[in-house]
């Protein structure tokens, strides 16, 4: 079965015909061509595929594309504006929150989700919010520094 999927993807309205069994992850990567969202474990265990659905972090590898009909989906591609990195992107870049980079889009989206609902997170808030994401490289210390720095940039007016 196929159906019409209508959503606001990265701020722009979009309509596609999608099969019922299409995962949101594959819709983003293969249909739309937005490959910033990564396929990691493919089973809900790593968070590399995290995107925001109506500002809430969601695992796109376990979400059916058809089930986000009428909602707003933001991927990592939505963050930079006119070539300028967002607060969270700058945080990960400048504070070395990224090494191989594979987990980074997922961490960035989970962090952006956090700053959208809580612009002044404590260390504990940051740790809790990133609890569905795994990084094999950084050891997490730099990631937490990156998000703290992003919150400072955000307080200074940079979009998360």
């Amino acid at each position, binding site marked *: 079965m196929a159906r019409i999927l209508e959503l606001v993807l990265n701020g722009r309205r979009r309509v596609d015909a999608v099969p*019922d*069994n299409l995962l949101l992850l594959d819709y983003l990567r293969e249909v739309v061509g937005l490959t910033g969202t990564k396929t990691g474990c493919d089973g809900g265990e790593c968070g590399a595929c995290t995107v925001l659905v109506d500002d809430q972090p969601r695992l796109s590898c376990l979400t*059916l594309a058809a089930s986000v009909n009428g909602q707003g989906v933001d991927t990592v591609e939505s963050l930079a504006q006119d070539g300028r990195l967002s607060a969270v992107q700058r945080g990960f870049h400048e504070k070395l929150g990224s090494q191989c980079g594979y987990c980074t889009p997922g961490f960035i989206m989970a962090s952006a989700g956090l700053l959208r609902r809580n612009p002044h997170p404590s260390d504990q808030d940051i740790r809790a919010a990133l609890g569905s994401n795994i990084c094999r490289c950084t050891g997490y210390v730099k990631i937490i520094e990156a998000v703290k720095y992003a919150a400072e940039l955000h307080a200074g007016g940079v979009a998360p």
Partner: protein
Amino acid sequence: MDALPEFALVRATTLEEMIGVRARHPDSRLLGGGTDLVVNIRRGILAPPVLIDVNDVAELRAIRADARSLEIGAAVKLAEVAAHEEVMRHYPVVAQAAGFIAGPTHRNMGTVGGNLCLDTRCLFYNQSEWWRAANHHCLKTTGEVCHVAPKSRGVCFATFSGDLAPALLTLNAEVDLAGPAGKRTIALENLYIGYARQDRPITESDGDGKYYLSLRPGEFVTAVRAGNTAGLRSAYDKVRIRRSIEYPVTGVAVALRRQGDVLADLRVAFTGTNPRPVLLKGTAELCGGPLEGRVFDGLDALVRDQIMSMKTTFTPGHYRRRVAGVLARRLVARLFAG
């Protein structure tokens, strides 16, 4: 690009519509957050022809809690339960259990109904198709033997690992069910039939790791309800391999009442150990006196007797059982102390 086999998705908006689809498609499955179901479809374990998305069914999305009672709809998200002020205040064991499930993103997705009906888990089951095929599958799917207990006569020991069930069992919760044959309410304890007894055939009320729920054909959970008991203290604790994302090695819920220096009431329930969440039998006999060695020894004996030690996870079964006992003792002592 077809990561998943073909199925039809029904985005239901009313309970009646759900019941109708269930009647027409007995092999359909309810889709809550999909954090269990989609993984299993992906791994070739299940291939339901129809999925019924419950997330737009307003009747299933209500949560109501006050000092007298608690009622949570099946489509309520775990994150909502964990952060609900009144649930935290009056039913802390439930809020804490919800907050310990998987990770924060999973809790934005996972539903209460999906958690209560979570498929049982096993080292030989939660694997990819080729991994399982290399082992000639097992009883829970299409195979002939149980790799955990090769001498098992047709009985599967896969472990129930949902965290909400034990919490709700300590509150004597009930579940509301609906299906093509009508609506009914049963004790939550009777939803779970994974007794996995070698000496009895599997029946409608006596199942195992494969037949672990007492749901009738087409039936599903619509809500879970519990009353409050004045003076009840409750809490949840859990051990897992890492503090996020992982399923429990074991989870323990305790609810007790203290009158002066007397342990007046004690209820203890576990997950991650048996093919059903286990509400420990025999705790009433431990009550009526002060909290002393006798109570803890008695609790240990009940755990040894009722908690299984089958090796269905990476952690050895006897270790899991010991952890269960230790967690229970600690929680009882903490709650009694205040």
